[in-house]
């Protein structure tokens, strides 16, 4: 049909436009990171620099500097965080999915209420710094806000309720399997899609998080994740451009302000893991959001 054909062509044009809009900023970052630094200063960030150079990457990977260290912190943080987050979310969600669990109403309320009302930054900051003394430890990157959230718990709970038939669980119980065994042998194997989705949500949240490090890690710069390092670098540049009196302050955690091309290379390296895994995990992400419905 003619109008359909026209619609399809127009859709392609519009969606190509949107897709370009989505990726072009990242491509500018990539081309800038491969630009010769002098050319970059003269011509600015550009898609077609007049002189290419891989110096920025040589610099990052050769000098055994803070970049590699921050990378390691980010990797460890993401792995530990994702595993722990997945474990405690799954366990709590499974309990909430038990239809005749005594006290289920209270537990569900506690989770839902945490999504509706929170103390905000000030009281949370005081609890973590004054009571638990997490500041300037690795735990500060791991724990505040990220380990579990009500949305993921409810998402998983509704998956358990809707996708694992009660008959199987009842049959296992009648056959003498206890609750732990049922969970481990039946529920977990049946829940792989949702486990992948929640792991993905948690993994992305940990890799991208900069707030915990920014708020709680103020002294020990060796605990900086990639995001924190990038963040600090950008601030240093701002300090320098605003006033020279702040130079001493600005250099905390970095021996010197990296070149413009190096900065963009570091940012590129910072999103690299996401870009690499993204094509493979994208479908679990979309599935998870669809499952969550409009709540997301």
């Amino acid at each position: 049909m003619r109008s359909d054909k026209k619609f399809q062509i127009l859709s392609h044009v519009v969606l190509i436009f949107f897709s370009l809009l989505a990726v072009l900023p990242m491509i500018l970052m990539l081309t800038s990171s491969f630009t010769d630094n002098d050319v970059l200063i003269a011509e600015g960030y550009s898609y077609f620099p007049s002189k290419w150079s891989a110096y920025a990457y040589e610099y990052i990977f050769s000098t055994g500097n803070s970049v590699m260290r921050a990378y390691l912190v980010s990797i460890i943080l993401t792995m530990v965080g994702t595993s722990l987050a997945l474990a405690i979310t799954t366990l709590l969600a499974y309990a909430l999915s038990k239809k005749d669990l005594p006290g289920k109403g209270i537990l569900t309320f506690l989770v839902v209420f945490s999504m509706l009302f929170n103390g905000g930054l000030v009281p949370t900051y005081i609890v973590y710094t004054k009571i638990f003394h997490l500041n300037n430890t690795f735990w500060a990157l791991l724990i505040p806000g990220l380990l579990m959230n009500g949305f993921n718990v409810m998402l998983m709970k509704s998956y358990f309720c809707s996708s694992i038939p009660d008959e199987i669980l009842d049959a296992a119980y009648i056959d003498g399997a206890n609750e732990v065994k049922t969970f481990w042998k039946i529920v977990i194997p049946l829940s792989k899609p949702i486990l992948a989705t929640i792991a993905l949500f948690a993994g992305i949240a940990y890799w991208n998080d900069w707030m915990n490090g920014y708020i709680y890690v103020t002294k020990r710069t060796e605990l900086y994740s990639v995001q924190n390092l990038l963040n600090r670098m950008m601030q240093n540049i701002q300090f320098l451009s605003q006033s020279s009196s702040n130079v001493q302050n600005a250099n905390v955690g970095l021996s010197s302000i990296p070149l413009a091309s190096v900065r963009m290379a570091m940012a590129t390296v910072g999103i690299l893991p996401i870009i690499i895994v993204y094509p493979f995990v994208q479908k679990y992400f979309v599935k998870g959001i669809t499952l969550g419905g409009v709540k997301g």
Partner: protein
Amino acid sequence: MNKKPLKKRIIRYLPIYLMALPGLIYLFINNYMPLPGLVLAFKKYSAKKGIFGSKFVGLNNFKYLFATKDAFIITRNTILYNVAFIIINTILAVFVAILVAEMTSKWKKVYQCLILLPYMISMVIVSYLVFGFLSSDNGFINNTILRAMGKEPIQWYMEKKYWPFILIFVNAWKVTGYNCIIYISTILGIDRGIYESAAIDGAGKWMQIRKITIPLLKPTIIMMTLLAVGRIFYSDFGLFYQVPQNQGALFAATNTIDTYVYRGLLELGNMSMSAAAGFYQSVIGFVLILGANLLVRKIDPDSALF
């Protein structure tokens, strides 16, 4: 279901309670232990005396807060940005969703994948991307676009008048791919038979979209909008803090309740104001979320949070 006696069930489910325990402990620490700290909004905080030893000052913190210009600016910015986000992001998400869902070519997967990509990137890196375009010395816009047009460079990080547009654009860029997912799945859930009979009756594609797709998307749009309205008192801290790079010259256009609370607590050492603004956000935010969810529950119980 035929329920067994309570005692028997408790014994049977003992392992389940143990399994739930780590999550509950975390919830207690992360979400419930801070709640008593809200009382700080009514106190003059002294680090030495702690939250509960600090002097009670009644509503003084709020009096000071609302006597400043800041209270008005942060409330206005938070709400107006959210309103703009809701309107623009909804239009974009629905538009993209319709194009993707109605597309027959396999390419639609690629488009969807690319448009969702910005959602996966941290705000710190987004601030680098924005800086790549807006940096006054090296930025792409000043050096390439404005130069080609023969225009003078603009000090983007000094001029607040541009920032409402920049932030709205950056936000839309980041979230459109995410927001359209739910609309796409709604459209794919529509019975194809309706479209086929419309086509037989001679309705072209535009007509089908106008008369079938959009009306059937309406409940989802209403629900999403209501839930977004429920969060109108909250803002994306990363967007408003990282992207404008915490530039003082831009505060009038970029300060929201979340950035104000942060700066009060950790940059200006103004704990009382910060606590008061945080309390103000928590309470009004709670009322709005509760209200929005009650409304949503009336329309579609499955979509409500509770």
